[in-house]
């Protein structure tokens, strides 16, 4: 039904006037009472109690004199819900108004509005369902392809256009559009993923261990500066048993010798913040799969006083370097000492155009071996680099591009001995993706001059090993090229039909009509007849399947979901992917909807490691974690945080691990606000001022009794996301916390309000700037709800570090030298002291964030309710609507005996009507 039918003309009239327009409309259209909505009853009510302020748009942006009832229009419907909510909560008409409605008037009004809104929503639900049909989002499409084809390393998400968002998540059909761009990307992505699966089965090497010595991988010419350039901090240097080897460095002794080989190392004092890093080990994964990476090395301390820069004079044989004076912040690579601290070393997987962090290892002053296991795509290379030593960081000296932690006593560095890569590790399922595509048919290289074929990425082996330190020598250079392959079939037609039938059933998550098989078989036949060969013709048909509505759309019928749809919804909720074979089997037997079975499957999915995808996808949107890199701390006043990757990564990990733990251990929802534990590593613990946590590994830590940390809102991730890198705004932070954590939605300010212009000169605090704002009563209505949490969080800076005073820049004040929490020297100027006190809308006062959290958590129900609402929106693509409110309360009621455990909330959402109906 379209809006024109429901759309009742506005009640155009002057205050106290007759409702002529409405009456005329009723007569003309002959609308029945059910369709006329709440306008009739409300007209009188509005006239009597609301007109003083809300006619002709005098207040709150709501002009009741022109308010129509047009429920198909989402904004209009929301307006009516808001009217209902404010009136039934007693907020409107305002208490100070003299003429107030009688209880009977009130009841008549709210009942009428409620009845209309309910009738409309129920009708929509019956006809179309709560949700409208949607396609998979890019996270889900990636996971679905990874699971179907067993290619967990495949990077699909970034090949697809950004998804639209509705109701905060990327789960609603209202925002998940399809365009020709989307279609094009599906074609490319599906093809890529299938070729990855083929590649994993082609030339699969035996598991082998390859040990690469740093002295071999890194040519000794990197020990010496190049002409007119290389700053000494970028050079590498030979290290043996934590000490320098000046003779080797000068080229007067061999780079490596058999007696010392195992103990030899190569050192460095800086790292590069980009993908053009050092210590590329000359290893490219020969095949996709799982690899074990071991790295041996240790931290060192390097004396300062090295040469600032080399210059040369003279020509030809006369040419000789001219040294400049030594400077304290440049390394003297001929003076190396055992390390004074641990150094976290990042491990990265690199392919053309992208770098992804795959692990962190601690280097200690004593040599040790770190080990990780990772998934690599074919051709990906390994890079290792110190995470704290980005040379582009500012360190408080005038000189740029030095070790950021350099002091007059020298600087930290690290030395690597060797890297050992073992793999691809034995994996019985390694070729299961290929088998889904081609069964037992053999794959071979395409013959010369043969048509067709499918191109696969392939690593060509090392051509030659340059002599150590010889001219032009460098690391190994295996390269990634293409090889065309073909799959042989003796009976192409029969094989094609057999394989395709099996493939479609796997991809379509359920039984498939014969006509669908024939549809895609037609694609194979056409392509095969054109001479494209068996493999490429099959991929053509499969591509059709993987971009078709049957795969990319989530199929649901209005009413209660059938078992197949329920299985898909459950998997998309808890794995952010499509159902596995076991879940599908339950659905196909028609027993998934049975409460016991559904409960058991929910448990199984939650217990599976794949549930981490839910944690990441949910927190990416609910808490905006995907926006962690949207701003970076100012290099002027927060340069102690500049390029602090370890801190940022730990902050992200903390939030994800924390939520995963709430889910795993079914901890009460109130932990979202305040909790006695969190996840920390050394860097993050340092940031929070919590002693006793050593090393880069994240672990569960019980917080000190009086800690201000614990709960989401005092996590560095959230505090970073809610700041802009330079300043914090209690309004913006408060608004975010109010919406995401406390579950109170506030409307955006009217367009005429001017944003507060941040001032970091230190003379005025943001609170003082805002005071004027809050004194305005129409602003105060929302600000009294939003600002308290923002004020309480003023004691945290843009990266979530505790502060008692603001930081500022000012030209007329001499900056004072300070020390960053990571030991890095920097300079800044203190501004005014922070005031983190405030009061809640109900008048309860708090002095700081700890008291604020205590007040909030005194009633844990709103906190649990908010979490349940977010879960419902994520799981069903639709927020809790007007008519869903009772069902939401049921979810809460069922969870109350478990103190609103997070896992229980998830289970109750699954059990609810909201989840089980379209």
């Amino acid at each position: 039904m379209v809006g024109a039918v429901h759309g009742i003309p506005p009640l155009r009239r002057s205050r106290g006037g007759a409702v002529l327009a409405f009456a005329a409309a009723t007569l003309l259209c002959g609308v029945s009472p059910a369709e006329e909505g709440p306008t009739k009853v409300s007209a009188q009510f509005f006239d009597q109690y609301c007109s003083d302020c809300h006619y002709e748009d005098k207040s709150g942006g709501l002009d009741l004199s022109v308010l129509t009832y047009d429920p198909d229009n989402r904004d209009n419907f929301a307006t009516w819900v808001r009217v209902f909510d404010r009136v039934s909560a007693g907020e409107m008409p305002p208490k100070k108004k003299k003429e107030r409605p009688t209880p009977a008037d009130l009841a008549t009004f709210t009942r009428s509005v409620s009845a209309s809104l309910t009738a409309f929503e129920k009708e929509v639900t019956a006809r179309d369902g709560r949700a409208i049909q949607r396609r998979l989002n890019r996270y889900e499409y990636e996971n679905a392809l990874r699971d179907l084809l067993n290619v967990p390393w495949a990077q699909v998400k970034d090949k697809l256009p950004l998804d639209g968002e509705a109701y905060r998540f990327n789960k609603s059909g209202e925002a998940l559009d399809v365009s020709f761009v989307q279609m094009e990307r599906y074609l490319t992505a599906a093809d890529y993923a299938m070729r990855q699966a083929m590649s994993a089965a082609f030339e699969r090497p035996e598991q082998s261990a390859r040990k690469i010595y740093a002295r071999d991988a890194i040519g000794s010419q990197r020990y010496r500066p190049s002409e007119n350039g290389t700053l000494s901090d970028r050079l590498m240097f030979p290290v043996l048993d934590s000490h320098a080897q000046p003779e080797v460095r000068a080229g007067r002794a061999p780079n490596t010798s058999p007696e010392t080989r195992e103990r030899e190392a190569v050192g460095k004092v800086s790292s590069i913040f980009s993908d053009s890093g050092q210590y590329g080990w000359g290893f490219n994964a020969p095949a996709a799969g799982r690899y074990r990476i071991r790295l041996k090395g240790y931290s060192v301390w390097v004396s300062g006083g090295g040469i600032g820069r080399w210059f040369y004079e003279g020509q030809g044989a006369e040419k000789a370097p001219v040294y400049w004076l030594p400077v304290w912040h440049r390394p003297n690579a001929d003076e190396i000492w055992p390390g004074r601290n641990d150094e976290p070393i990042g491990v990265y997987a690199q392919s053309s155009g992208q770098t992804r962090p795959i692990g962190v290892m601690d280097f200690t002053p004593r040599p040790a071996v770190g080990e990780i296991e990772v998934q690599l795509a074919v051709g990906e290379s390994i890079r290792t680099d110190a995470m704290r030593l980005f040379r582009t960081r500012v360190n408080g000296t005038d000189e740029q591009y030095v070790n950021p932690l350099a002091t007059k006593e020298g600087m930290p560095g690290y030395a690597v001995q060797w890297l050992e890569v073992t793999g691809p590790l034995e994996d019985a399922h390694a070729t299961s993706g290929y088998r889904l595509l081609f069964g037992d048919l053999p794959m071979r290289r395409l013959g010369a001059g043969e048509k067709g074929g499918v191109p696969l990425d392939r690593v060509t082996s090392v051509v030659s090993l340059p002599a150590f330190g010889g001219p032009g020598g460098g690391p190994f250079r295996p390269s990634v090229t293409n090889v065309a392959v073909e799959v042989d079939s003796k009976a192409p037609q029969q094989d094609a039909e057999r394989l395709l039938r099996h493939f479609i059933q796997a991809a379509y998550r359920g039984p498939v009509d014969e006509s669908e098989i024939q549809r895609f078989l037609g694609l194979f036949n056409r392509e095969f007849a054109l001479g494209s060969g068996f493999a490429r013709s099959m991929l053509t048909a499969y591509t059709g399947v993987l971009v078709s509505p049957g795969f990319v759309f989530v199929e649901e019928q209005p009413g209660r979901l059938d078992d197949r749809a329920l299985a898909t919804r459950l998997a998309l909720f808890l794995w952010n992917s499509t159902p596995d074979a076991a879940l599908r089997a339950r659905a196909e037997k028609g027993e998934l909807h049975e409460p016991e079975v559904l409960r058991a499957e929910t448990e199984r999915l939650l217990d599976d490691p794949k549930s981490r995808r839910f944690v990441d996808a949910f927190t990416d949107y609910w808490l905006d974690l995907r926006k962690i890199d949207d701003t970076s701390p100012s290099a002027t006043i927060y340069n102690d945080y500049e390029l602090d990757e370890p801190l940022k990564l730990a902050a992200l990990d903390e939030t994800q691990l924390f939520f995963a733990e709430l889910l795993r251990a079914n901890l009460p929802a109130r932990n979202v606000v305040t909790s006695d534990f969190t996840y920390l590593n050394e860097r993050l613990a340092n940031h929070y001022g919590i002693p006793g946590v050593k090393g880069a590994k994240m672990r569960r830590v019980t917080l000190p009794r009086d800690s201000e940390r614990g709960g989401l809102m005092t996590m560095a991730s959230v505090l970073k996301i809610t700041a802009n890198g330079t300043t914090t705004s209690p309004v913006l932070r408060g608004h975010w916390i109010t919406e995401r954590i406390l579950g109170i939605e506030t409307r955006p300010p009217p367009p005429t309000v001017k944003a507060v212009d941040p001032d970091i000169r230190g003379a005025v605090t943001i609170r003082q700037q805002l005071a004027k704002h809050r004194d305005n009563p129409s602003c105060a209505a929302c600000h009294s709800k939003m600002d308290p949490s923002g004020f309480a969080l003023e004691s945290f800076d843009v990266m979530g570090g505790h502060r008692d005073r603001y930081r500022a820049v000012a030209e007329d004040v001499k900056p004072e030298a300070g020390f960053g929490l990571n030991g890095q020297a920097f300079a800044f100027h203190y501004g005014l002291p922070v005031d983190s006190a405030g009061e809640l809308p109900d008048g309860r006062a708090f002095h700081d964030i700890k008291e604020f959290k205590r007040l909030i958590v005194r009633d844990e129900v709103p906190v649990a309710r908010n979490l349940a609402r977010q879960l419902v929106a994520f799981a069903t693509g639709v927020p809790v609507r007007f008519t869903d409110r009772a069902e939401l309360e049921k979810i809460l009621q069922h969870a109350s005996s478990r103190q609103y455990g997070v896992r229980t909330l998830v289970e109750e959402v699954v059990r609810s009507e909201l989840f089980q109906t379209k």
Partner: protein
Amino acid sequence: MNEKFSAPFIAARRAVSRRRFLRGAGVAMSLPFLDAMLPGFARAASGSAAATPRRMLGICNNLGLRPDLFFPTSAGRDYVASPYLELLSAHRNDFTVISGVSHPNVDGGHPADISFLTAAPHPASSSFRNTISLDQHIAERIGNFTRFPSLTLAVNGAARGLSWTGAGVAIPPEERASEVFNQLFLQGTPDEVDAQIHRLDTGRSILDAVADQAKDLQRDVGARDRSRLEQYFTSVRDLEHRLQESRDWERKPKPVVSFAAPPEITNPAQYMDKVKAMYDLARLSFETDSTRAITLMMNSVGTPAVTIPDATITDSYHNLSHHGKAEEKLAQLKVLDEWHMKLLAKLFDDLAAVSEGGERLLDRTMILYGSNLGDANAHSTINLPTLFAGGGFRHGQHLAFDRAQNYPLPNLFVSMLQRFGLEEDKFASSTGAMRGLEMA
């Protein structure tokens, strides 16, 4: 990865703006418009829009310019140039500077850059839906005159672009100038062309199959769900259509240029070099009539400390923009802003130096340089710094509107559409054509 082998069909070569599928061949206009080359080729006229080619380049610097140094203090034709505009004084009569304009209800600070050419309201809200951008609106109408209906480019940000389809879907921008250059001017071998045509046909047959399925499924679903399947169906047909048009272009030779391929610049700190490379590409594309609508997002927000000859920039671009009125930061920001002006002056020079049909190419090329932020320090989205150059208007003036209660910027888009010869009087939240702006 070797691009030639990247997919068995369709996406075999990286598309310009990654849109592989080109509108084609209503007219035989595939060849350069360069005067020197014209005599050898017959020129088919087709409608008024083809008679005099008009072009647009829409540029958004998503951190804007310092308003105190950009906006002139006096209005009209006799305005006194501001410090920044001094740097463009050689072209004073080639541009109009506009103050007191913004997109109505486009707020939310940084996220507003994606609304710069769409004017879709409230880009930061959770229920935001973007709408078609000016360049796509134009490409849909006249894109078939050129090999590429449009180019979507970006500096330092493949994730954020200015071009959005009619479905409100982002067209991912291309940020590698060399790649765009290859697509524009590198010929394929006959084998490659045959293979490409085979791939396009395969793509079309796949799309046919899935379109049929979508049609079948539509029968069984309710109205709201059907609208989603219809959108899918339309997208498939749209893509098929583009494949067909693309196929038509495959056998036509690409233009020959003497300009060398631009170097690959990967370092985001070389921001200004990247901008210059994109300006050069835009000029070449227009000169060869390879496209008539180009957008360029300068993602300053995602740019680290910029490398500038003879100047030291200590902070990332975004941090500088949050200068908090600190002199040191303001000074560095000024250096960057001035570079923007110098590069624009060079672009104007270059476009003015090319002659087409007896006119300067500049006079047939509308250049909109602006930002979604009026003052990045406060994230304000009003009083946007706006420079409008070329395209055949009576320039040389400062159009000054109320800096607090702004005049709608979409009105300028309407003027641009009309300059294209399109009979349109509305774009997004426009209220008419730009007041005070007259065609030459």
